[in-house]
């Protein structure tokens, strides 16, 4: 049975809690970038993706590529909750000798399709995957979802990939943009305004929609709709960096900074209260 919007929202909170814990322990990593993507990642892993954690190499699986590799914690949390690896591994993120690297690493982490972390490369990798699936006759069954950041959209290569997807007539690809408007040095508007990303994808020949990246109904509808299209699909998600932790939400200065103990405690208090509320609401039907 498909997870309801309320259930997905609860999962998103749970993943956010894991991210805060992981990075508080690691004392390193990109928390706010993970939080802005939490609702999208929860919708993917708990409802949209066709995948089999018991058989990560299943040829017909959907592929998820975290183009914005710096948000690795949110994907790690989702993978762990789907038993790709033990939950305990989460607390070893970014530490020497452990499986979970600072950015997703296909050679070390089950469930990671390709290594990412250098912005701009992910969407091209997605296009390559779709072409391989086509040669294997799996275009109709397996869909490729790439999750991009606004930084990805500043990189020129993303637009090379957008051109190629349209040129090769790829239809089983969805580019999801986590447009949170904040980057390392300031707002995207100040640093390098990427402006109307939806219109850009549309100009490149993609089906392109813009949604609220924290509205679970809009997210799931857009993702599921994108599967049925006969051309590449872009979903530009307007998001808030640090979403779910009010001390961080939309505030500049947290990119790449782990939560200090005080911030982590406050964040966990806030998120756990929400989780309890969401759990109760689901139980009460």
């Amino acid at each position, binding site marked *: 049975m498909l997870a309801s919007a309320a259930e997905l929202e609860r999962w998103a909170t749970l993943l956010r809690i894991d991210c805060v814990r992981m990075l508080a322990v690691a004392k390193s990593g990109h928390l706010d970038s993970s939080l802005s993507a939490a609702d999208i990642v929860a919708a993917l892993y708990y409802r949209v993706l066709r995948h089999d954690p018991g058989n990560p190499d299943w040829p017909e699986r959907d592929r998820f590529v975290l183009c914005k590799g710096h948000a690795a914690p949110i994907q790690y949390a989702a993978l762990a909750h789907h038993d790709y690896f033990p939950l305990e591994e989460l607390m070893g993120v970014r530490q020497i000798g452990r499986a979970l690297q600072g950015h997703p690493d296909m050679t070390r982490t089950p469930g990671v399709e390709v290594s990412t972390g*250098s912005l*701009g*490369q992910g969407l*091209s*990798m997605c296009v*390559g995957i779709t072409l391989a699936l086509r*040669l294997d006759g799996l275009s109709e069954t397996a869909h490729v979802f790439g999750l991009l950041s606004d930084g990805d959209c500043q990189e020129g*290569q993303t637009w090379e990939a957008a*051109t190629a997807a349209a040129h090769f007539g790829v239809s089983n690809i969805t580019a999801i943009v986590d447009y949170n408007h904040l980057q390392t040095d300031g707002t995207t508007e100040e640093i390098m305004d990427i402006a109307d990303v939806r219109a850009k994808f549309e100009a490149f020949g993609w089906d392109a929609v813009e949604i609220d990246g924290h509205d679970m109904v809009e997210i799931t509808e857009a993702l599921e709709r994108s599967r049925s299209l006969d051309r590449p699909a872009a979903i530009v998600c307007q998001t808030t960096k640090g979403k779910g932790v009010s001390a961080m939400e939309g505030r500049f200065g947290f990119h790449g900074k782990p939560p200090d103990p005080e911030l982590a405690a406050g964040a966990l208090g806030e998120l756990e209260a929400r989780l309890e509320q969401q759990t109760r609401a689901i139980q009460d039907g």
Partner: protein
Amino acid sequence: MAEAKTEPTATRHAYGDALVELGEVHEEIVALDADLAVSTQAIKFGKRFPDRFFNCGAAEANMMSMACGLAATGKVPYCSTFAIFAAGRAYDQVRLGIAHNELKVRIGASHGGVSLGEDGASHQMIEDIALMRAMPRMQVVVPADYNQAYRAVLESFESNDEPMYMRFGRPSTPVVYDEIPETLGGGVDVVREGKDISLIATGHMVWRALEAAESLEREDGVEAEVLNVSIVKPIHSEPVLESISKTGVAVTAEEHRVVGGLADAVRHVAAEQHPVPIFAVGMGDEFGISGTGEACMEHFGLTARGIADRAREALVLKPIVSRPPLFGPEWT
């Protein structure tokens, strides 16, 4: 199997020819190119297997990352473009997407060095071997002629699953191997035996080193040994050590900067295991220039004469450094 060439032929033609032969046998092979398929000769594969050929247009970074996605999904991509774009423009894409991921991707980098000629410095890649040698897990193959290049491409599929950079050239190049060799072996062949000096060359410089050896014998009575290093990384140290320990002095020759390429690879082996004077023929701290391919080679001394002259300088040094001890009792 193609006929061995006897007339001078460009190594890039071997890439195109052998790729078709591989494609006939291995369905998982796909070829990618970036609007240079005629120059790189990938077009031959494209015509024979249009469904498995992807021309990516002038977007090399995208091509390399696409190759990552294809390889991660079970295909074996052969990616071709000019060396300048393969190793230069797309370095980061090759690094993370291909080398880091240990994916079986073969990069066919054509028009390496200055012998591409007229297009000039913007297109003459003289540091690709250094870049690719420095990249973890990347193998670097530089065949000497068409016949060896043909074998190199065939062997690239079967040899191993590690990423590989193969460098080919634009100009027609005299044959060094009469037949298509059965294998590249360890990647170091003694193509001429000698006892006085080792001439260690790669790619387009191998036939020139053989000519240099002829002139050294004719004019100086020097018996030069010539080694062809077709696999620059990982370099097979034993034949190199065997030769330099016999001759006591060496000259390396490459159509590349003397930094980071064959010279450094050989010097690294020698410095740790058998130090001897090793002089280098290659590009100094400078960029290429426009002219015919051969004029460019001559301009930078990348010729048989250039190698022979360097060998003569090295031979002057040989008795001095090989008379130990320099500061012993006999000198006081």
